[in-house]
């Protein structure tokens, strides 16, 4: 302490010491401000039915943070990930978003999927905070939910279902009778809206649609109705546990022998849990599969970094989109030279990026990521190179704005 000198307090020494102390404190503060981290809020349902996907998605976001920091951050400012569990509850997600904005002053909120995604959008829109969710939703890119600060990283149902239809319908041959088994909530409905127009334009006949409640556990009562329609193809418009149980029971009840089965979205973690037998022969879409690394250099770079950080594990589809949902805005911040939202939004709009699966950009009218969709099917274990080599890539539909729902159809002024 300056005042605790043996010779007693001397005014000049006190003044000099005090000035030095103030100066060092001020310098320290300036230095701390210079190194103030760029906080990224990451809201995902770690608790609940999609906990496995959310957990690996966080790992993808961690890769983005690590890469950004290794590359020097934003003029020395490092990024910091703040993960919050929304418990798959929109109210909780909204409160968490408010907390991240109020207390942490985050520069970006990312990660959300499911119903919480739109609840968080209501908060970020009101507060003018940059937001980049990943969930498969057409609503988030529609005009009614549009926000200048909201981008959308994940593939939409329209994109996934359309890509599936374009691949699978031409493979059906002469008879193109298609039946739909639809989970009766917004995800299933959006998938139907994406699939049916494309399929019918390619000559498919939709012979019937059976809806089941979300969370159904017994599909045996639906199968006779579907079999009676005599379809060539059954498209399963459901997600998560609903989809897994449908595939399992379709195998056990011999439905697969009567018709082909497809689903707009197949998920890496679900296939690992349920194994090949239930997924055998089923064709589906996905935003990413790590096995494309031999063809796409950015996929190889992302996979290598992910494996290095996470004990050799290969990234899932959710890990990849989780990575991009953070990496793209961070690159935009670097390009803009600031974290100021307006400047970052402009940089994101101008961004052309290839982070993990080829070229991408955000469409001007709705700010959704224009991206490729992979058509995949389950790979038998005997053909797998490693334990999590679980899918074969049948086709890649390159990203193009004309593959998306039109701006007008989504309610945007063109």
């Amino acid at each position, binding site marked *: 302490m300056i005042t605790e000198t043996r010779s007693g307090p001397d005014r000049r020494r006190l003044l000099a010491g005090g000035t030095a102390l103030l100066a060092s404190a001020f310098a320290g503060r300036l230095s701390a401000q210079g190194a103030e981290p760029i906080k990224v809020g990451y809201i995902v349902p770690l608790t609940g039915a999609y906990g496995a996907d959310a957990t690996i998605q966080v790992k993808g976001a961690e890769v983005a943070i690590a890469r950004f920091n290794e590359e020097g951050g934003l003029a020395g400012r490092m990024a910091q990930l703040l993960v919050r569990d929304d418990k798959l509850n929109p109210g909780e997600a909204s409160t968490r978003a408010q907390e991240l904005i109020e207390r942490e002053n985050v520069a970006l909120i990312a990660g959300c999927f499911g*119903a919480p995604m739109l609840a968080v959008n209501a908060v970020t829109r009101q507060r003018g905070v940059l937001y980049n969710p990943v969930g498969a939703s057409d609503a988030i890119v529609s005009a009614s939910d549009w926000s200048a600060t909201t981008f959308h990283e994940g593939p939409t149902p329209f994109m996934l279902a359309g890509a599936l239809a374009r691949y699978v319908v031409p493979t059906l041959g002469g008879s193109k009778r298609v039946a739909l088994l639809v989970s009766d909530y917004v995800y299933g409905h959006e998938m139907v809206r994406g699939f049916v127009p494309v399929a019918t334009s390619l000559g498919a006949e939709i012979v019937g649609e059976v809806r089941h409640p979300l969370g159904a556990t017994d599909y045996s009562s639906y199968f006779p109705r579907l079999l009676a329609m005599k379809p060539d193809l059954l498209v399963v418009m459901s997600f998560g546990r609903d989809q897994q149980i449908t595939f399992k029971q379709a195998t056990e009840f011999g439905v697969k022998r009567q018709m082909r089965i497809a689903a707009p979205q197949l998920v890496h973690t679900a296939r690992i849990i349920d194994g090949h037998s239930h997924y055998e022969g089923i064709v589906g879409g996905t935003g990413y599969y790590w096995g494309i690394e031999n063809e796409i250099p950015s996929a190889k770079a992302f996979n290598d970094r992910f494996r290095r950080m996470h004990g050799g594990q290969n990234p899932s589809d959710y890990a990849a989109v989780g990575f991009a949902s953070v990496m793209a805005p961070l690159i935009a911040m670097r390009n803009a030279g600031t974290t100021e939202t307006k400047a970052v939004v402009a940089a994101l709009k101008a961004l052309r990026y290839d982070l993990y699966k080829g070229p991408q950009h955000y469409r001007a009218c709705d700010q959704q990521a224009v991206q490729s969709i992979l058509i995949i099917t389950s790979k038998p274990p005997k053909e797998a190179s490693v334990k999590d080599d679980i899918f074969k890539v049948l086709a890649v539909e390159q990203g193009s704005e004309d593959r998306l729902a039109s701006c007008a159809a989504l309610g945007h002024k063109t």
Partner: protein
Amino acid sequence: MSVAQTVPAPTGLLARRFGPVGSLALALVFLAVLPLVLPYTSLAGTVLVMGLFAAGYNLVFGYAGILSLGHAAMFGGGAYTTGLLMLKLGLSWPLAVVAGAVAGALVGIVFAALALRTRGIYFAMVTLALGQCGYQLAITFADVTGGDNGLRGFVAAPIEIGGLVLDPAQPMVRYYLMFGFAAVALAGLARVLVSPFGMVLRAMRENLPRARACGLDVRGAKALALALSGLVCGLAGSLYAIHLSTVPVDTLGYHLSGQAVMMTLLGGMGTFFGPLLGAALFVGAEHLVSDVTEYWQTVVGILFIGFVLFCPKGVWGTFEGARQP
């Protein structure tokens, strides 16, 4: 046997020790300081809304001894009414909040008309079914309600009071605007509880046949209790819509009805302050423990079991009991 008979009876309509004014003052001071002591303001907002919801629920559960498992319909009814009036008719948010509270009361009246023919566990089952009807209606009429995605697109605009512009987008401003509504509701609730009608509720809870034998209009009193409870719960739902700027469909779900029971039991059923404290403990524990561990449900579950075992009258009920001479 009513639920009230299975749980030790609490001390009084309003805390006897604190008196009506004291209990109300305690509740208001508690809510007033919440945003200053909790880690962030929006958490205080959630506690306020859930506390008001539990306080409204306590009117029928704690004071009248009626177990309802469908109160989310009143909460969600208020939330959706507020959101829809703002979104579709452009109504100012304070008016929409009042309308939401009235909608909650109307739901309470519907509950009374359809469920009061039954008693005890049968009443609980009917209310559960009615609550789920509300949920299914919201899912079915997705074009109006937003379905699973919830109702979105409305924002509480700034209001001017005496030349002072108050913007609900500011967390602290929003909190104290909500606090204003909650304070009026709690004052009204306190007034009801010390009125003769409050005594009727207590009489029904303690001994229903005797209350009927005394000539009290038991069914009418229950119906009025449900309507008043709906009014407060509808207000809580309306404030929740303002708090989140969206109405999740879960506001009509049976989980929320169950949460009302848990918050009320945790704080102390039949006490004025207990439900507010129960909401703070429940919401606070859920938020804060989940920040620390992904096994937060286990921790919160153990805490809840501990409270039920060692504080059967709830935290505040036990405290008040210990203060009895």
